[in-house]
């Protein structure tokens, strides 16, 4: 299967690889997995005044999973929490030209963003906290 140029670009030069201290209250951590293939993805956001000021990820998985999470960190940076919450996996599919068998990688990245936001909210007891 051929990867698109954008997937290859993110795979060769992933943006924002690394991690923040998950116990920092300004940090939200999302850890998600795809049991159908064994991928595991960690995405973290750093929040100031409801704005995502920085993001990091680390993904153990295929090229598409790495590219999806790399792109997700680029997209959430500078967005408000609510804006980031509305990022859809279909936008990632479109941007990276993912084939149907790799759509679950983009779903994973969307889930990771939502899990990170949810973690941030729950540790900050925000009124709109989920879970």
């Amino acid at each position, binding site marked *: 299967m051929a990867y698109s140029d954008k997937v290859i670009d993110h795979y060769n030069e992933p943006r924002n690889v690394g991690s923040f201290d998950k116990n920092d209250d300004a940090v939200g951590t999302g*850890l*998600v*997995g795809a*049991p*159908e*293939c*064994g*991928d*595991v993805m*960690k995405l973290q956001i750093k929040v100031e005044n409801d704005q995502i000021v920085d993001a990091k990820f*680390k993904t*153990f998985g295929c090229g598409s999973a790495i590219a999806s999470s790399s792109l997700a960190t680029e997209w959430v940076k500078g967005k408000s929490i609510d804006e980031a919450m509305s990022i859809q996996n279909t936008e990632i599919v479109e941007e990276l030209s993912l084939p149907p068998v790799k759509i679950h990688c983009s779903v994973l990245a969307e889930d990771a963003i939502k899990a990170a936001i949810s973690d941030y909210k729950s540790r900050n007891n925000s009124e709109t906290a989920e879970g």
Partner: protein
Amino acid sequence: MSEVSSKSFSCEGCGAKLVSCLFCFDCSSLQSISEESDYFSALGISSEFDVDPDLLEEKFQHIASELHPDFYLNSTPQEKRLSERASTLLNQAYDTLKDPFKRADYLMSLKCKNVKWNDRVLPPTFLQEMFTLQEELDEMLENQDQQGLLKMREVLENRFQDLESGLLPSFRMLDSVEEPETVLEKLQMNLNAERYLRRLLDRIKIEETT
């Protein structure tokens, strides 16, 4: 639970009872492939988890030798195509059934077609553990820590064994319960965990061969 092991096939030509749903050994004729032609029927073994690997291998070789497209070079186009399709199906059947985890996955979907269960279930804290193991593995690979790699490989292989040995008792239970969802989720949890462990093990094996 519904029993599927009692499925039996008769030859479309001579009516003899078939060993494999793909071929009649009595009148040497290919059989048409239908929705009923599942992997177990293709290999002529009963649809249960407990499979004798030697018997499986023997059946596969025996049936494959009759289906091979090379024997149908002078046959009608329909027969040629059928032998190709039958050979492909038989190969898929063999690849699936010889691996205990793939066999379990297949048998679950075969037995419980109309049952819904959570197919993403994982043991609690499993994901965090897998992430940590992957990071540890990164470090070992970077430092060429051969001892660490060997040790991790051993630990992973033991966990594989544990997962695998949990499958047969669960399938026995599946046959005896009215509500299969809980047992199916337990099986699914083993299958999902296996994929994560295999990812780790594959990384170690790639390192060993390079």
